[in-house]
Every structure is written in structure tokens, then in C-alpha cells.
């Protein structure tokens, strides 16, 4: 919150509602806190390295546009010490090892941990294959003597490309699996409160005469442990903030109580934000390494973007106008009656 306040020039906010004006616009600042529990769902993964050093990982996980393919590629490449281009992630097939799927901001932590363990098991098999090679200096020595990095195996003084090593030692390829149990059943989960946090900031303008509300700036400051991919993480938060804006100012399912149908059941009448509705958005990650969460120290991220974004806007509207609206969306008809006193 302090970081966000500093970046958002929170000191410009006047605590008295309706006291900051620009011509016929009332300007207000608002903020809200965001919190999400950090869940881990039971998940499993299989991983295979072939004679060419190519790695294929399989999970029945989903990628609903959040970047799962990408972060799992990073996790596997990082764990195995091979380039990203050597990794193929195959998802979305129910014949593959069972995962928790997407939902509750738990996909990356659940599937990622299972894949990490599968890769660690595979790495142990590669290392064992090195050590059992007759004539290798690493034989009978500790695991520390064998490293895999940048797509090469180093044992003792010798370095060999992983593909060459695989062709020579295990041309049939090597397979491994890994899994993670549901977080709720672990000691670490029972002993520690595990959450990710955020602070949302909003600046809005409200037209004195029409009551039209425009969001001008939004900022999210996010603490979700270690960020697995700075780009896809930022995109997720930007998307969440945009939906928070939509919920706060536009989106509403209107029910016809006579016939029980939704009146505005298409995107022509159910309003969602378009480009000109979405103002200057900014996202800041405050990285932390939560060693209780999972092996990466990464925590659920996806829903922090929407959690609190709408509330910050509603608070900004109150700060601008003195009108406290308790029901989303904040449409102009809800603020207009209260504007008469403040917007003379």
C-alpha cells in the first residue's frame, strides 16, 4: 500500500469528498486491498527426454490464455538445465497425468510443482546414468560432480552435449513422473496462513452535469511471491483490472422477473470495457520468496487483478462526489441525484 500510494501520488487526494475539481469534473482517488488464498491442488506430470535431448512434458492441465504453456516451459528448462527450445509442453488431454486444472489462481503452483518434481526425478535418472557409465571419472562420486546446464552434461573434467550423451547412454530415452498433493493436506498449509496480496488504486472523474464516471488511472501493486514470468503475470493482472473496471462501471445482467430471462444476454447490450474505457493501467510486483508456499515460492496470481479493482473505483467515486454507491455497476443514474448538493 505504501509503495502504491507513493507511485500513485496519493498525497494529491483530498479527504473531503467533492473538494477536488477540474472545471466541471469532480476528481476522486480511491484504493482497496486485495487478498487471495494460495491453494495447491493435487497434480501429476510425466516428462520424457529422447535420444536427441528433446524434452516432452505431459499434463492434463489447461491453458485458458493465462500462459501455462510458457511458464511450464520455463520451469522444465530451468529444472533440467536445457534451453527453452528443447522443451515441448503437451496439455489438455485427459489421457495425460491428472492435474487440478485452471481455477482459483492455483494452476501455476499446482501443475508447476508436479512438473518440477517430474523434472527433478528425470534429472536424477540422467545423473545416475552418468555415474553408472563405465570409465567415467564421476563414477562412485557424489551427485554434486555431475551438472546439467545449457544443454550439456558436465561430469568431472568432461563436458558432453546432452543430445550426444543421450544417444550414447540412453538412446531409448528416459522417463520420469512427479506429483504434488493437495496443499490443504500438508503441514505447511495447516501451520501457515498462505495468501497473496495486492493494493489497487484508482483515479476517476465524474461529470458535474451528467454524472458520467470515467476511470483515469488504475494501479495494482501485487505481492504474489516469486513471479514465474514477468510478462504473462503482468498481462494477467492487466486483464483482471480491466474486468474490475467493467464490473464497477458497466457490467450488469438485467433479469426480467416476469419471465425469468436475462434481458441483455449478448455483448451488444451487456457492456464490457472497450479500449477507450480502459485508462492508464499500471502493475507493480513486489517480489517475495514464500518458502512455505511451494518449491518456487510462487503464489496464486490471476485473480488478484480483479479482486479490489472495482472497490477502488467505487471508493474513488465516493471521494469525487460524496455519493456512496453500494451496488455495482456504478452507473450515472445512481450518482446523479447525490450530485446536486456537491456539484453546484
Amino acid at each position, binding site marked *: 500500500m505504501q509503495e502504491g500510494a507513493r507511485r500513485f501520488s496519493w498525497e494529491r487526494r483530498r479527504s473531503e469528498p467533492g473538494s477536488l475539481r477540474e472545471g466541471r469534473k469532480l476528481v476522486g482517488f480511491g484504493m482497496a486491498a486485495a487478498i487471495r488464498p494460495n491453494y495447491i491442488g493435487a497434480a501429476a506430470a510425466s516428462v520424457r527426454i529422447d535420444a536427441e535431448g528433446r524434452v516432452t512434458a505431459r499434463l492434463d492441465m489447461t*491453458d485458458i490464455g493465462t*500462459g501455462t*504453456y*510458457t511458464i511450464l*516451459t*520455463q*520451469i522444465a*528448462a*530451468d529444472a533440467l*538445465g*536445457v*534451453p*527453452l*527450445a528443447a522443451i515441448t*509442453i503437451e496439455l*489438455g488431454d485427459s489421457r495425460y497425468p491428472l492435474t487440478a486444472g485452471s481455477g482459483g489462481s492455483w494452476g501455476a503452483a499446482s501443475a508447476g510443482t508436479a512438473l518440477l518434481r517430474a523434472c527433478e526425478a528425470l534429472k536424477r535418472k540422467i545423473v545416475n546414468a552418468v555415474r553408472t557409465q563405465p570409465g567415467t571419472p564421476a563414477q562412485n562420486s557424489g551427485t554434486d560432480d555431475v551438472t546439467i*546446464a*545449457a*544443454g550439456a552434461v558436465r561430469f568431472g573434467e568432461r563436458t558432453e552435449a546432452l543430445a550426444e550423451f543421450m544417444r550414447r547412454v540412453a538412446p531409448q530415452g528416459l522417463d520420469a513422473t512427479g506429483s504434488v498433493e493437495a496443499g490443504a493436506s500438508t503441514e505447511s498449509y495447516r501451520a501457515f496462513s498462505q495468501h497473496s496480496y495486492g493494493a489497487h488504486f484508482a483515479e476517476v472523474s465524474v461529470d458535474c452535469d451528467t454524472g458520467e464516471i470515467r476511470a483515469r488511472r488504475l494501479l495494482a501493486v501485487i505481492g504474489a511471491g*516469486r*513471479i*514465474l*514470468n*514477468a*510478462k*504473462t503475470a*503482468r498481462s494477467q493482472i492487466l486483464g483482471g483490472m480491466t474486468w474490475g473496471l467493467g464490473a464497477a462501471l458497466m457490467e450488469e445482467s438485467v433479469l426480467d422477473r416476469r419471465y425469468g430471462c436475462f434481458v441483455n444476454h449478448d455483448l451488444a447490450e451487456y457492456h464490457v470495457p472497450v479500449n477507450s474505457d480502459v485508462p492508464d493501467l499500471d502493475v507493480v510486483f513486489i517480489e517475495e520468496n514464500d518458502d512455505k508456499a511451494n518449491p*518456487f515460492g510462487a503464489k496464486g496470481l490471476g485473480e488478484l487483478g480483479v479482486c479490489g479493482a472495482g472497490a477502488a473505483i467505487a471508493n474513488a467515486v465516493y471521494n469525487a462526489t460524496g455519493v456512496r454507491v453500494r451496488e455495482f455497476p456504478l452507473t450515472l443514474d445512481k450518482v446523479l441525484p447525490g450530485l446536486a448538493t456537491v456539484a453546484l
Partner: protein
Amino acid sequence: MTDKAQRHTTSGGSLIGRPVDRVDGPVKVTGTATYAYEVAEGPPSAFGFVLGAGIAKGRILEIETGLGCRFRRVTS
């Protein structure tokens, strides 16, 4: 983000956290990504259509399928 940060390499530290471009980006923007619908496996799919009843309250005594089943490749 700098080119350096996006470079696909394992040299110089962890790959975790880097702003790597989406690995599925190229197939998606070129329209070559495979959707579940496009994965052909097993026998041809059967397609169904929900037909609403014309009577709001009643009991189903019989479903007349004879006419429909005369069409080629209609399954019952």
C-alpha cells in the same frame, strides 16, 4: 523489456521469472493452434440438438423418432 531478458537461453541464471514470450503465441496469432474440436480421433462425432417441448407442463408418453430415423446417418 530488453532483448537480453527475452533471449531464450539458459546462460546467466534462472529462467524462472523472465518475461519470456508466450510459447504458444505464434500458432495462435497465425490461426494454426489446434482446438479440441479439430482433433479427429475415434469414430465420427454425433451431433445433437435440444428440441424444446411445445407443452409447458405434461408427461412424456412417447417420442416419435420414426420420421427422423429414416434419414441416412441419423443415429438413435
